């Protein structure tokens, strides 16, 4: 009995002491949304905290759709967003700023028996439309006019995702029109293609390449896009070997947009919280120096300036 009393007293004292310690006010910034922007946001948060130890970040990835829902529901301060807003969404008073650029790339299993040929020829937009929109079980002979019974297993995203929406936009449709086996999340989709020798899919660039080496992850390859439709991959269409080359191609527009696209932070109405505004301004100024090293394409200077202007507008 005596011991319990002591224990109670100890608990009460510690709780009182703890509540007294919360003088230095910490501020939480909650961010959810697109897988595409997740690694960069984590990097930014790390760097920002070095200079502002009183700011705490809760960051989680769950697809662009989840980011938007959470922002609208007030469960979040910021959403990571990797596609354009639909007119209906824009009407809800969503405020957005572009913070970086990246691209969605079509992927294929590296052990696919036809990969060497596909790499030489590339696929045109029409070929991709046939693969991702037909919904039938296809073999490669219907795409490459060769006699081959090698099947195509198409993988797409099951969650509401910016990557899927952007890839669909490139093919001229909406995410719901893509036909294939739906897998949750960017990492999941990459793994599904790595595991299935006949697998074909699409991924955000950052989930295909290894940042440290700049090479593609083991087992996954990129299908080169035949942009000028001449039935082969020319020198200026060949930039998939190394991550830096890809980023360069996105930056100078050789890789088409979409599937290249800007990435956004969104919030419900213009942010009012000074801590949040400070973080966003930091992202657009000093934070841009981490974009390249994190595996993204920095925004053009005029875009950044116009984003910064939005803070000064009423």
């Amino acid at each position, binding site marked *: 009995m005596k011991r319990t009393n002591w224990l109670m007293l100890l608990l009460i004292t510690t709780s009182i002491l703890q509540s007294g310690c919360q003088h230095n006010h910490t501020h939480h910034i909650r961010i959810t949304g697109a897988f595409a922007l997740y690694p960069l946001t984590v990097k930014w948060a790390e760097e920002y905290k070095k200079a502002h130890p009183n700011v705490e970040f809760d960051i989680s990835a769950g697809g662009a759709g989840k980011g938007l829902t959470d922002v609208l529901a007030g469960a979040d301060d910021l959403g990571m967003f990797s596609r354009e807003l639909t007119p209906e*969404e824009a009407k809800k008073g969503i405020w957005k700023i572009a913070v970086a650029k990246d691209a969605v790339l079509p992927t294929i299993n590296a052990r696919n028996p036809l990969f060497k040929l596909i790499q030489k020829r590339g696929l045109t937009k029409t070929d991709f439309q046939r693969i991702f929109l037909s919904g039938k079980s296809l073999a490669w002979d219907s795409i490459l006019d060769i006699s081959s019974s090698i099947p195509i297993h198409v993988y797409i995203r099951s969650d*509401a995702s910016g990557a899927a929406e952007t890839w669909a936009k490139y093919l001229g449709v909406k995410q719901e029109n893509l036909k294939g086996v739906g897998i949750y999340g960017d990492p999941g989709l990459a793994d599904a293609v790595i*595991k299935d020798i006949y697998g074909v899919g699409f991924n955000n660039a950052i989930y295909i390449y290894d940042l440290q080496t700049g090479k593609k992850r083991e087992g996954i390859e990129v299908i080169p896009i035949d942009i000028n439709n001449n039935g082969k991959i020319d020198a200026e269409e060949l930039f998939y070997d190394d991550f830096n080359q890809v980023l360069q191609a996105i930056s100078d527009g050789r890789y088409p947009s979409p599937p290249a696209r800007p990435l956004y932070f969104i919030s419900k109405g213009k942010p009012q919280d000074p801590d949040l505004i400070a973080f966003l301004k930091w992202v657009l100024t000093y934070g841009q120096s981490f974009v390249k090293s994190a595996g993204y394409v920095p925004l053009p200077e005029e875009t950044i300036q116009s984003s910064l202007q939005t803070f000064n507008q009423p």
Partner: protein
Amino acid sequence: MLIATLTISVLPLCIGLGLLIESIPLLQKYHFWRLISHTAWSPMEGKFGMLSFIAGTLWVTGLSMCMAVPVSLLAAIYITQYAKPWLMGIIHPIMDILAGIPSVVYGVGGVLIIVPWISEKLAPAMGYSSSGYCILAGGIILAVMSIPYILHLQIEIFRTVPVELKEVSLSLGASYWETIKYVLLKQTRKGIIASIGLGISKSLGETIAVLMVVGNVPQIPANVFQGAYPLPALLANNYGEMMSIPLYLAALMFAGLLLFLIICLCNSISTWIIYNMHQV
């Protein structure tokens, strides 16, 4: 105590009503039968055909029961009638562990083990080409998940059969297996039906483990190596996207309502079967 009981009794009614009220905007625009008899699912174009989702739900649940029920029944008979008592002591904690593993762990296990096994070994051996994300994978996982529940109930039921009954049967010259077949199973028919009903309810509502392996393809599967899209997976995957498309939320709530109705229907059928046994 009365209030507590009343609350519990009213709950299903409230849930059903809530789902119905939420799905009214969709039902005003389209006829109920049209919604559940069409397969075209394209919310952007205002097509909300639910048939492929209903088919996916029934396929996966049906497959899982075809696997789980015979296995559980045979295991329950063996454990209660043939095995040494110490086996029961081992089986109980094993079942508790199986029942306690979070479904997302089953899902990950399915993606890592069952999906590659189906796509590399089983489907080619049967002459199909499959990615492994299919209703069979969903069925296998659901079977593993529902076995502990079914088995637990069946073991309890078999233990309620009085020893005297079996003794009488044996003394009349019936063999041990005949006794089990004609006395034990006849005595416990109702309980076995009820345990299957419990398993079906468990399978119908399971979401995360199934959506990780079933492929999420809105189609009516032609064979077990094709993907499908069960109703709970539809809800879980799309609840984040509903604000930009008119009627999407109503359609998702309608999917919930359909699931609710299917579960009510299954329960009614098993109750009806048990009730009819009384009449005999």
